[in-house]
């Protein structure tokens, strides 16, 4: 498992995760949601900020709360937990913007050694899946348990 994560609440089905980011811009509720795609066993990893007034979750908001590494580490840990619960699952993540896709790449790269102990990580480049390598721009990421 990874280090330095936020305390996180998990739904009973292990598909929803919530934690609170703390930083100069205040307390921001973050949501990670795993939803099954049209292909059975393949899940989208969704990640965004929750508006505490409306309850609406947005994956395009930028919180700039100065805790990117801790947030990404927490999101990565949800992947460990989700796949331990659903060991046959394959998880795919795409960024809602190029910046967010790059953030995912940084998050994976920063924790790659620990992640690769349990998962195969692949990236989508030029219309093909390949084994994830640092410093390469990918359009999507895929993970499954070794």
């Amino acid at each position, binding site marked *: 498992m990874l280090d330095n994560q936020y305390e996180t609440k998990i739904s009973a*089905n292990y598909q929803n995760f919530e934690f609170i980011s703390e930083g100069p811009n205040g307390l921001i509720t973050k949501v990670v949601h795993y939803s099954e795609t049209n292909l059975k066993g393949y899940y989208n990893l969704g990640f965004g900020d929750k508006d505490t007034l409306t309850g609406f979750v947005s994956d395009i908001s930028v919180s700039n709360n100065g805790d990117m590494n801790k947030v990404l580490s927490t999101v990565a840990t949800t992947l460990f937990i989700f796949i331990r619960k659903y060991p046959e699952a394959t998880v795919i993540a795409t960024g809602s913007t190029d910046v967010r896709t790059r953030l995912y790449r940084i998050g994976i790269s920063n924790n790659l050694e620990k992640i690769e102990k349990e998962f195969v990580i692949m990236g989508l480049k030029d219309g093909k899946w390949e084994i994830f390598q640092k410093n390469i721009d990918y359009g999507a990421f895929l993970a499954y348990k070794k």
Partner: protein
Amino acid sequence: MKKNKTSEITLPKGFVISNEIESNYDNQPLFKEKVDKVNYILKTVGIPKFNK
């Protein structure tokens, strides 16, 4: 797909099951655009060759 292969998993420190999370998002399809995007990728690119 096999679910709950291990009915109990050990959670890392600070991670807890919370019943209050379960119904929080019943009224909104979370990250629908992302799911659509992944569905499109799976349809057009396909899945990688696995050693699963």
